[in-house]
């Protein structure tokens, strides 16, 4: 796959899905602790998101890093915008900034579940 085609494919995925997680493995079966942590947060918060398994597509695996200028997986996107990797998403979850982002972008999630995560990590 050429870089251009891979980038078109990424843009297409980001256009069609409000929340996208590029990860190692799938949301049902993550294959890396960092991917697992972010998928776990989104699953627990009941967010409707598309998961893209980069281990299943070497072209996308490299292209997504160039696309976001970010060298690691996972990568979370909301409404086409790169939000961050595992550490940033974790910090944002615990600070409540992820809730604010979802609120601002009109993304549905379970507020109680988010509070539960924060209470458990307080």
């Amino acid at each position: 796959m050429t870089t251009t085609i891979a980038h078109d494919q990424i843009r297409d995925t980001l256009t069609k899905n409000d929340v996208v997680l590029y990860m190692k493995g799938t949301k049902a079966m993550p294959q890396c602790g960092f991917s697992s942590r972010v998928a776990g947060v989104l699953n627990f918060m009941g967010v409707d998101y598309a998961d893209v398994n980069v281990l299943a597509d070497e072209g996308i695996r490299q292209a997504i890093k160039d696309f976001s200028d970010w060298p690691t997986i996972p990568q979370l996107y909301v409404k086409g915008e790169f939000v961050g990797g595992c550490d940033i998403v974790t910090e944002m979850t615990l600070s409540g900034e992820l809730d604010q982002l979802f609120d601002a972008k009109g993304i549905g999630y379970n507020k109680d579940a988010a509070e539960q995560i924060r209470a458990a990590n307080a």
Partner: protein
Amino acid sequence: MPITAEEIEILIRESFPGARVEVQGDDGAHFAAFVEDESFRGMNRVQQQRAVYAALKGKMDGAQGELHALALTTKAPE
């Protein structure tokens, strides 16, 4: 080739000479780094972490990247 926490710290310090840097991890692949630098002021977290990744000069990249896992915490001084 495995990398050490010390080498990571040296790479980060080259780019952020005045920063407070702490790197932990001794298994050659999984590390945690904390970087606090004045240059981060006004940057969001993505921009801050991009800057640290840039300092690591591609060591995060690819399946053969020496650094499989780097938990990163960045901030500007309070």
